[in-house]
Structures are given as structure tokens and as C-alpha cells.
């Protein structure tokens, strides 16, 4: 495959860190309700959004991901009571830091998606995929390899 062809065949890849109790369940519900969204989204299950270390996010960008979404229960609904309040603090800062070093805001996002919000899961990942498809592959923070 030539470079050109590879570029033409480019499909964005989006990583979703989803907490087991809300967002993962919301994604399951989207499935149960047969709500379609682009196949570019991969869900990585973590117990709680509070488990998502910002280093995982940078790592994904290094390895060539095009977009990252960190998602968990709405504030007040975390299965572990307070996990997502820490998530919120951490990622409010992280998001700004990433933008500060030049990562486009669309590439890193965070959302609260509950277990009953299948449609919201669908809509959010659709939106992000479209945004990122329009922007093209991510080259920033990316490893040479």
C-alpha cells in the first residue's frame, strides 16, 4: 500500500476510557437498543473514571490514537461515591495542559454518561468521531515508530 493509499484509507481510532458502572453500562445499553455509531470507537473498561491515570491518555497519543474520551458517572452518582469528583479536578487541569502544549481540544474530551444514557453514549462518540475524521490523523505527541 502506498502512503497515499494508506492516507486515503485512514480511519480514525478513538479510545474511550469507560467506568464499569455507568459509561460502560451506557455503552452496553446503546448496544441493547441497537443504536448505531461509527466502528472507530474502542471502549477500555476501568472500574471507575477515577482509575484513569492521565499518563494512560498521553500514552495513547504517543502510540498514535486520534482521540481520547474519558467518561464516567455523573457527579454524585459514582459507584465509589467520590471517584469522579477527583476525575473532574484532575482532567479539568489535564485538558487545559494538553491544549496548552498544542493538542487540539477535540482530541481529548471528558463526559459524564450514565448507565441509562445509551443514546447519549451514541451521540457523544458519533460527534467525536466526526470531529476527528474532519481533522485527520493525529501527529502530535506521537512516537516516531
Amino acid at each position, binding site marked *: 500500500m502506498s502512503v497515499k493509499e494508506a492516507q486515503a484509507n485512514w480511519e480514525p481510532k478513538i*479510545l474511550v476510557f469507560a467506568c464499569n458502572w455507568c459509561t460502560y453500562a451506557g455503552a*452496553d445499553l446503546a448496544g441493547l437498543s441497537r443504536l448505531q455509531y461509527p*466502528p472507530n470507537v474502542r471502549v477500555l473498561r476501568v472500574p471507575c473514571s*477515577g*482509575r484513569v491515570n492521565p499518563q494512560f491518555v498521553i500514552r495513547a497519543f504517543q502510540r498514535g*490514537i486520534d482521540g481520547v474520551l474519558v467518561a464516567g458517572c455523573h457527579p454524585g452518582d459514582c459507584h465509589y*461515591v467520590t471517584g469522579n469528583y477527583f476525575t473532574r479536578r484532575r482532567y479539568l487541569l489535564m485538558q487545559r495542559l494538553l491544549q496548552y502544549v498544542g493538542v487540539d481540544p477535540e482530541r481529548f474530551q471528558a463526559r459524564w454518561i450514565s448507565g441509562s444514557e445509551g443514546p447519549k453514549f451514541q451521540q457523544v462518540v458519533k460527534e467525536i468521531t466526526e470531529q476527528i475524521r474532519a481533522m485527520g490523523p493525529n501527529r502530535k505527541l506521537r512516537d516516531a515508530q
Partner: protein
Amino acid sequence: MKRVGVFICHCGSNIAGAVDCEKVAENAKSFPGVAFSTDYKYMCSEPGQELIKKAIKDHKLDRIVVASCSPRMHEPTFRRCLESGGLNAYLLEMANIREHCSWVHPDDKEKATWKATELVRMAVAKVLKNEPLQRSTIPITKRALVIGGGIAGIQAALDIANAGHIVDIVEKEPSIGGKMAQIDKTFPTLDCSACILTPKMVEAANHPNINLITYSEIENVEGYVGNFDVTIRKKARSVDMTLCTGCGTCMQKCPTKVPSEFEMLMTDRRAIYTPFPQAIPNKPVIDRKNCRYFTTGKCRVCEKICPTKAVDYTQEDELVTQRYGAIVVATGFDLFDHSVYGEYGYGKYKDVITGLHFERLINASGPTMGKIKRPSDGKVPKDVVFIKCVGSRDEAKGKAYCSKTCCMYTAKHATLVREKIKDSNVYVFYMDVRTPGKGYDEFYTRTTDQFGAKYIRGRVSKIYEKGDKLIVRGEDTLLGRPVEVEADMVVLATAMVAQPDAAKLAQMVGFSYDQDNFYTEAHPKLAPVETHTAGVFLAGACQGPKDIPESVAQASAAAAKACGLLSKEEMPTEPIVSCVNEAICAGCGMCVPVCPYKALDLKVIQERAHGKTITRKVATVNSGLCQGCGACTVACRSAALNLKHFTNEQILAEVDALCL
């Protein structure tokens, strides 16, 4: 070499309809570590599971990936399958290619197959780093602790005791009974409170499974569900409980008079006292703050008079530690201090009293023998004003919430005044009348229609004394005009508020409370008697304003939960907990405050360094408390903390595999 087996499920056509399962199985063969890969129609079925077990044996597989439906659905199934195939249950990973793939991408088989392949690759990368984990069990101590001996605590204790478990009730006052013991009659049936409460108190006292630990407080709580180690401070009663027969001679002879808290300071008790005649246990305590002997060093009348020589001035507070499997918190409520309201006289007018004072004034064994007499001059009041929502629904000076019981008890009080004082006039100032509940609205209707209480909608703007009358000024908002009532007595329905020490107790036991210091249930709808702390349950008004039927119902619910726990010998624990690498941990303590379950703490360890023994601090995880959320792992910058089954290494491997 690790040998991974990959099993791709068709789920009939649920998956196979959108994903080329054979191709995914074929692709998986090239992933590092994969020794065997296949697909099958229904992986979760008996033959499907047999297939996995057989492959484990035939191909010497030591870890398994099942690509099928959501792990939220069948993870337990396949874990059991691994176990019966001879592998540790935690050597399983699942790739969700149904809910997260075939069902959401039905029309693009190529892309769906691509995605399924990648999801499997992620799962393989992760499973290569999985470690066998052991589910352990913790023994359950078959003994329950009930904190607070009001009606809620008594009911919870009786239910647990009747189910065959030992229960200790810790009550801070000298007697159990709580507020219900102070109430005269209960709405909506007007049966006498003592008549229905006393038998329950006696039953609790005589129950072979119940121990009453009165005049005692919780000093410290350690441990976790199944094994709470609770230290109880038994305050010195100065009366030997085993010798005292409860004859009460001492209480008659004691020369020191102290305003009785139980009687809302409207009459006196002695320094050696029981709070009320039907107290349980009916054995007195000495109030050392007021006792003449303890304050001046002279007296000892009670000691001399006691026929059994039970009085013992040398007693000291005693600390006892007991282990409990479950805790029911039933510490009840307190009443709002209305002295913040200048318009009601800052609590200075003698004849402006609270609902609880009124309960004592109409009680046959109260300070006035049940004759309604106003406190200032003992006159029988003719014009009585009731004011509702004092401190409730007032965000500025009081509480934002509705205290729920005041509408009904004020209706009750109004009825009782009209019943006892035939020529009386009763006025009730109210914001709303809220009477949901069985027979409640009927009761209220009788209060107005049959007993002729006059309900005036509006706030009272001022009360002031004029001669021996109280002038109550307010506005009738329905008629839109000011009203003024000359009253002999005013009764305030003060808000139900949390106990002053509510937050302290919650912190000690380790559960949460809301902005008003009422205890927070684990879920407002689906877990209303649980707390976020496993093994700790809530009953009664400590969780929020409640009347007696609600308190009792909640107490029985909490008891059922506690019994559910105590009926087991042991409890399985999830091995997915956090663990500390002591070699790395710097003991900085940054992890400690982020744990919602107080599972983290610092401890001191000794080690050899440069030929010396040194001590340093490191974090330690209480695996009985840890619920495996992983918040601490991110708080720890040097990654000294790791969450089993969701380790840093595992998640990084997944990220890498996905980005390939």
C-alpha cells in the same frame, strides 16, 4: 511461555450476523501469546463451556479470552467455567463484541470485523498480564451493635434478636426510649405513647439476645464489615447495677434538685436519678456534675440510705471493646433552637414553648400531672397559639427542609387542647398543611371541623408580652390582612434537626452525612437503609425527619439487612483491591484522603539500610475496606499503589495493543 486461548462466540447470529467470527478467530492466531483460537455458536452454552475446558486441557492453555457479549452479563459464567477447567477465575478476559460491536455496527461487516479483531487484541494483551487472584473470605462476627435506643433502635434490636442474633444497644442516656418516651399521645390514633412504647422497652430488656448498654457512648470504631471493633465508653453510673434493686429510696432522699431534662426543665429531678419513672433499666445514675458529694465532698446520703449498698462513688468510666458483624445507627434527632428568632422572643418568654414541652404538659405523669398549665404562672391557658415550621423551610435562619412530623403533631396538640380545655380557643399559624399518610388527612380534618381549631395561613411577624398575655401578630395571607391574637400560651413546632454530635459519630464509624448532618443513605431510592460503608445501616430520624411508623419500618428494614449479613458464616471478598509496593512507597500520604472507604493509612515499617535499622512510613491498604475503585493509584505519583486486575501494566498493555 504463556499460552492464551481465544474463543469467539457467534451468539447465534447476534454477533455472527455483523462480524466475521471465523476471520476474527483466524486473526487472533497471530497475536503474541495466543496458542489456540476458535469460534463457536454459543460460547456460554454447556457445549461451549465444555469446549473451553477441553481446549484448556488439550492445548495446555493457561489464560483465556472470550469474545462475546458484555462482561457485565457473562463474566461470572466464564469465570466459573475457567475454575472448573482448572484455571484461576481471574485469568479470564472478555472482549465485548456484541453490545459494543455487532449490535451497534450491523451494516458494515468489514469494519465490524476489524473492530472485533482489535477488541480481541486488547483483551489478549491484557490477559497476558493477568495474575491469578484468590477470593478470600472474611469471617462474620455474629453480633450486632445498635447505636441509639429510641424507638428505631429498640425495634431494630428486637428484630435482629428475634432472628437469633446477639444485639447490644448502646444508649447515651441512662434509659432507652428516646423522644417517644417524652411524647404523650401519638397521631393519628391518639393512643398513649408510653402504653405502646413501654412494652417494647421491657421486651428489649428481657430479651435473652439483647444487652442494654445505657449511659454509654461510642469511643472508637475500627475494622470493617463483619468485623467492626468498637470501643464503648461506659460512663460511671456510681451505682452498682448488680446490687441495685431499683427501689428508688435514694432518689427520694437526695437533697440536690436539678431541672429534669426529660421534663424539659419544667420540674426537678434529683442528682441521683432515673430520667422517668418507667425508665429501663430502672436503676439510677448519679449526675456527678450536680451531686453534692461530688461538688462539695460532703453528703453521701444515698450511700447511707441504700439498702443494698449499691452506691459506689469510686466507680470510673469503663472502656470495653467488642467485635460486631453489623452496625445499625439509630441516634435520632434533636430539636431546633428557636432562640435565633427575635420575632418569637429569642426563647425568652416563658409561655412560648416548644412542641416537646407541650407533650410533657399534657402528660399525666408530667410536671403538671397532665393538666395544661402554662409555665409562667401555672394558669390554665384559654387562648393557645401554635406556630408551625419554626426553623423548617427557612433557608435564611433555619433549615431548608420540611420536618415532616410537625403538621401532624400540631394537629394532635390542637385537638388535645380543645379536648382538655373546653372553653379554649386554638389558633394555628401555618405555611402549608402537609398530611400524606394513612389516616393523617382525616385526622387533620377532624382537628378543624370537629374540634374547631382555627387555622390561619401566614407567618407570625412578632410576639410580645402585654400584661400576662402574649400578643401574636401575623398576617393572614389567604384573607390578605393582618391578624393579632391575644394568647395565653404559644407553642412552636420547632424543626427536627440532626443530633449535635451526629457528624462526629459518622466520622468515627466512617460513613457520610449531608449538609444538615443527617446521615446519607447509599442510594435515595434503592438503598435507603444502607450507608456507603458495608455493614453499617440506618434507622429512624438520624437519616432525616421521620415519624414513628416510618422510623419503625426503617428499623425493621435495617434489621433485615443486618440479619442478611449475620446469617452468613463468612463473606467472600473481591480480590480486586489496591496494593502497596513498599519498596517504592515514599509514605507521602497523598493517597490517603482520596479513598472513599478510609481503606488507606500509613504505617511504620523497619528495614535495614546502610547497615542500620531504620524506620519509615509506608501506605497500607485494608483489603477488607478497599472496594477496588483505583482512585488511589492515580493519586500516587510514583505508582507505588496498583490496583489488582486493573494494574498500570495491564491498562498500558491494552492501550498499546489498541493503538497498534
